[in-house]
């Protein structure tokens, strides 16, 4: 975690820009937002994110906040979670929501897809064992349905069960009677979400950020 001077440093911005792919302008704007959220401190904590009003009504709020503090999203082999993050980590997590550039090769597109799906996978796989178990998936569905009224855990369980069955039938195919379906691995996850064009769906328009809007 680098230490920042109080004035924006061009050189540091440039290294960040190279690392995450954002333009200098976008980095400046995001830095402003970071300072606003962290109340001008160097690091951001979970409580700072919890104060955001727009997240109040979001059913998966806790998972989103967790994702910012998850070491796996900062670099490839990170493990565990941290209590506070600096601007670099904030920016790294944001870079998962960048749109693919117009002229990129198939390989780069595939790589971007994998990175974004890995982010999603990490959000579901809370115990970091490399698979999404039935319990974890049930939790995901419960959270999704949590704000939508009192339908109880049974429906969520039913839906999650059906979803797991679908994954099993798509990825593993016919199974012997004694076989267990352990959980969704990353490869299976890639397979079942092949239909959603993740690289174009999972993005935010960072280009049109207006600083006047940030004063909230």
């Amino acid at each position, binding site marked *: 975690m680098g230490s920042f001077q109080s004035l924006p440093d061009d050189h540091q911005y440039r290294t960040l820009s190279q690392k995450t792919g954002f333009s200098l302008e976008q980095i400046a704007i995001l830095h402003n*937002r970071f300072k606003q*959220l962290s109340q001008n401190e160097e690091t951001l904590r979970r409580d700072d*994110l919890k104060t*955001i*009003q*727009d*997240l109040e009504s*979001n*059913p*998966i*709020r806790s998972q*989103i906040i967790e994702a910012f503090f998850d070491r796996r999203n900062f670099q490839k082999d990170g493990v565990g979670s941290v209590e506070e993050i600096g601007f670099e980590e904030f920016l790294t997590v*944001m870079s998962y*929501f960048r749109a693919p550039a*117009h002229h990129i090769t198939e390989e780069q597109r595939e790589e971007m897809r994998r990175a974004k799906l890995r982010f999603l996978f990490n*959000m579901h796989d809370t115990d970091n064992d490399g698979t999404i*178990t*039935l319990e974890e998936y049930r939790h*995901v*569905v419960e959270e*999704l*349905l949590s704000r*939508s*009224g009192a*339908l109880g855990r*049974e*429906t969520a*369980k*039913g*839906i999650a069960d*059906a*979803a797991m*069955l*679908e*994954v*099993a*039938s798509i990825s593993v*195919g*016919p*199974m012997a*009677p004694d*076989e*267990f*379906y*352990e*959980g969704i691995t990353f490869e299976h996850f890639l397979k079942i*979400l092949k*239909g*959603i064009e993740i690289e*174009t*769906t*999972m*993005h*935010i328009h*960072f280009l*049109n*950020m*207006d600083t006047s*809007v940030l004063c*909230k």
Partner: protein
Amino acid sequence: MRMRMMKMLLLLGLCCGPVCCGQNQSDPRDQRVFPVLSVNYDYVQMPFEVSLWILLASLLKLGFHLLPRLSAVVPESCLLIVVGLLVGGLIRVMGKKPPVLDSQLFFLCLLPPIILDAGYFLPLRPFTENAGTILSFAVLGTLWNTFFTGALLYACRPAALELLPCLLFGSIVSAVDPVAVLAVFEEIHINELLHILVFGESLLNDAVTVVLYHLFEEFAHAGEVTAGDVFLGVVCFFVVALGGVLVGGVYGVLAAFTSRFTSHTRVIEPLFVFLYSYMAYLSAEVFHLSGIMALIACGVIMRPYVEANISHKSYTTIKYFLKMWSSVSETLIFVFLGVSTVAGPHAWNWTFVTITIVLCLLSRVLGVVGLTFIINKYRMVKLSGKDQFIVAYGGLRGAIAFSLAFLLSSDDFPMKDMFLTAIITVIFFTVFVQGMTIRPLVDLLAVKKRKESKCSINEEIHTQFLEHLLAGIEGVCGHYGHHHWRDKLNRFNKRYIKRCLIGGERSQEPQLVSFYNKMELKQALMLLESNSSANLSTAVTAAAPRLESGERLRSGSFFFSERSAGEVNARRKPSVKFSLEPPKPPRGPEHLLEEDEELMHRRH
């Protein structure tokens, strides 16, 4: 024996006598015999002819599909126009005057079912995602086409035309026609994005066409154009478009509200949907607003609420009736186009017609390329050259242009016949040449085809998850992007609107659960079909993958959850346990599911 014969003859004679006498006594003036069989065609002429035409059209449709080789090469619309030509020729040979496509009949009876079908089943998500692009093609593209065609026609001066008639002609001929686009694009199965772009454009450009048409007609009548008139024209456009949407919206809300109370009279539920939509169309037409936009708005707005309220049978009824009516309408329109070609007075002018066709093509290509260049700066998924080509090539003209031209008064526009001939030629050109060649071109250019949309609960879960995630991230960024607003709209919808418009417990049902219920219903039906020959086993199948947390999850055991929400019964009812081996897809009901999907896309 002879006695009996004698008695019979006597009886007959006795009967005939009084009858004849009675006849003579009651009607002394008329000495005719009572007619046993007479012909009175005039009494039934109107409905008889209408039914005959519809029957003919339906039989033709039947016939085409019995000739697979022909229907694979030539799109249905072309065949229907050819048949219309033949029928028109036949009528003319018989000495009578072939009927022309009456504009009132067209706009009030034939067009609404097609538009309602399109609007009710409009795939909303791709439409809203590409709304900006669609609007710019519809509004700016049509304006460009009109002025480019009109201005260059005036510059070329075939048949010494004034500027205003040229512009009027430009406005009529430049609008992409939804009927023709639907007819051709349904058969080529291109990907969703291109389909919604061309189709959405053809629907939304109605507002522009209506305004321009009335504007130029008024100006031609008045004779003089001021700047104030032009300004009023622009205002008129907004009034027409937004007014149409408003009218449609009001009727849509009314329909949704009415459907809340129909639980005791399920039989007439579909009637409300049709009537409210038709009333929306007619009401918009009263004020010269855009009827098409009213119809689309009505269908789009009422659909989610109506579908939550009505029974499954009513839903099926609505779907089938809409498909049926729109199919018949489409067939009739094309046949009548053919017949009208034979009938109508023609004034053939080589220069005019050739210049028109060339200008139409040119303006379309330039318009699309130019607009895409600007639009791509704002789009996430850029439109490639191939996409632009398909969008430009798919700009077909159709019966709307013909009917609008037909409505012109011959006094104001002495060149009306020339216009009609040119428009018919353009329509023929686009439908035949472009319609027939677009399919091989799509294959040649390897344009992406429509994905087989499988009902996947995983995709649905993750789509919802992504929506919330993106809205959340936008919240963290402090950026009010369109995810944020969509999220807000959804919450508003859930909290207030659904409670008003959806009756009973269903108003609280989250989208994921209703999706899941629908999917289960479909799969249960599928299983019923596949197991109809075999016996419904209540035993658990042997090949059952078990899941880690100790739960025994049988492969493919489904259970019915009650559709009445609040009572979602997730406990496995042993009596309705079916068994299905995961890898073998059931052969039988594939067509059922496919049919269901295909019905959504009007292929029978």
